[in-house]
């Protein structure tokens, strides 16, 4: 089953590189779609079908569709995205930030492994029922905080797009 992981991990990374390097807008968006679907496949592999389905529904089915919608409104198929930035300080800062993110991710993975280790899966792991009860009992606070955050973003978006109330 390791092969399964490597196939989709490679697919996600390859598609990710394609997304940031493609000069055509829509193929770039499709690269992102491939990333989302490979990640969903990895979630399936991790016994989390519900998360996989949410990944496809929300990211691929809603958010990316909006991105594509904007591309279609603002560009024609002939338009190209701007090429590489010539600004050296900005590019080196970006590279540094990328490196820091990579280190943080590695530390995070290490931390999770130290805390959780290799445990057998509990009964009904990944089932919608268990997921829901965990969500609305143990993690209700976190859930509410995130929803308030989203509400703030929503109000902000309405305010920005509608200056004259």
């Amino acid at each position, binding site marked *: 089953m390791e092969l399964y992981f490597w196939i989709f991990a490679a697919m996600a990374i390859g598609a990710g590189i394609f997304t940031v390097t493609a000069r*055509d807008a*829509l*193929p770039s968006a*499709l690269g992102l*779609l491939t990333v989302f679907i490979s990640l969903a496949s990895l979630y399936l592999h991790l016994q989390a*079908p*519900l998360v996989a*389905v*949410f990944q*496809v*529904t929300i990211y*691929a*089915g*809603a958010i990316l*569709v*909006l991105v*594509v*919608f904007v591309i*279609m*409104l603002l560009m*024609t*198929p*002939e338009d190209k995205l701007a090429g590489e930035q010539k600004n050296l300080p900005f590019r080196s800062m970006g590279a540094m930030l990328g490196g820091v993110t990579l280190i943080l991710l590695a530390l995070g993975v290490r931390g999770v492994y130290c805390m959780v280790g290799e445990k057998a899966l509990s009964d009904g792991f990944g*089932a*919608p029922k268990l997921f829901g009860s965990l969500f609305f009992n143990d993690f209700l606070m976190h859930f509410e905080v995130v929803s308030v955050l989203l509400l703030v973003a929503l109000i902000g978006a309405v305010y920005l797009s509608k200056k004259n109330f």
Partner: protein
Amino acid sequence: MGEILIALIKVVFIWVWVLLCAVVMTWVERRGAAMIQDRPGPNRAGPFGLLQPLADGIKLFTKEDIVPAKAKKILFMLGPLLFSFPAFSTFAVVPFGDKFVIDGKEILLQVSNVNIGFLYIVALGSMAVYGIILGGWASNNKYSILGGLRSTAQLVSYEVPWGLALLAIALVYGTFSLRDIALAQSGTFLGVLPNWGVFKQPLGFILFMVAAYAEANRVPFDLPEAESEIVSGYHTEYGSMRLGLYLFGEYVNIVTLSSLITTFYFGAWHLPYIDMSAFLGPISYGIASFIVFFLKVAFFLWLFVWVRWTVPRFRYDQVMTLGWRELIPLGLFNIFVTALVIQLTA
């Protein structure tokens, strides 16, 4: 090995069956249109023109495959594939009958009874839009892009009431498994009515139905291919079998949506007031449940045709107003009432 073989047989069987339904639907559509418009329709090929779909298929396959010079070639070829793939895949979780019992072994008439079947449908339903977007964009033609834009906006808008109606169904039955939802609809409701979803969720049914017509790009919501305005929208530049895949995918979509309506709101394979399993043998019961299911589906398929040739097309702003200002508030209201009733009666 036996399990895999059975699964394989089920996959091939339902795939061929859905294809067949879609093929017959192209004939029903044309004959139905003719009937409603008081003209004979295609009646030359075979009895009642039944061989017409075959002739159409041969024609589409043997036509020259033209890719416009300015089109984005790879995307252009990918479009129809991406459109028909979700249409075909949704049937993996739809129960198309109850079960066979052979040598004490139960064979469910469903390809895969997963506990997230419900969400799988929602996820695949949201993927269908990419085929249309790709087709419209890759054609590099103003009508195609307009059609693609319209369809993106329309599909995104109507997925919301669609999902809200589904959510209310999940509340009522307390499960995400389509088979469990179907099983829960036997017997009677309030003593007199059949225990079908439509009686528990009348508003939800209407919402689902309207949203389903919009999701399938059917009249009165066929804005993405409004012939009188934008030639035929996203598939203007397509020809031969690529066009065939788009047209065919639409019929597969209709078959899938009709099956979902039957499963969620019309008791799947259950007959009202009669329990078929009580007096039929294990094998004949399986066949009977399959037939009952598809008779119900056939009615909704006919309804799609009926509506198409009876109702005029909406204006674009009307589509958006209906989606956002009417259906979504109604969907939220429906969920609220459903949750309230469940809370009070539990």
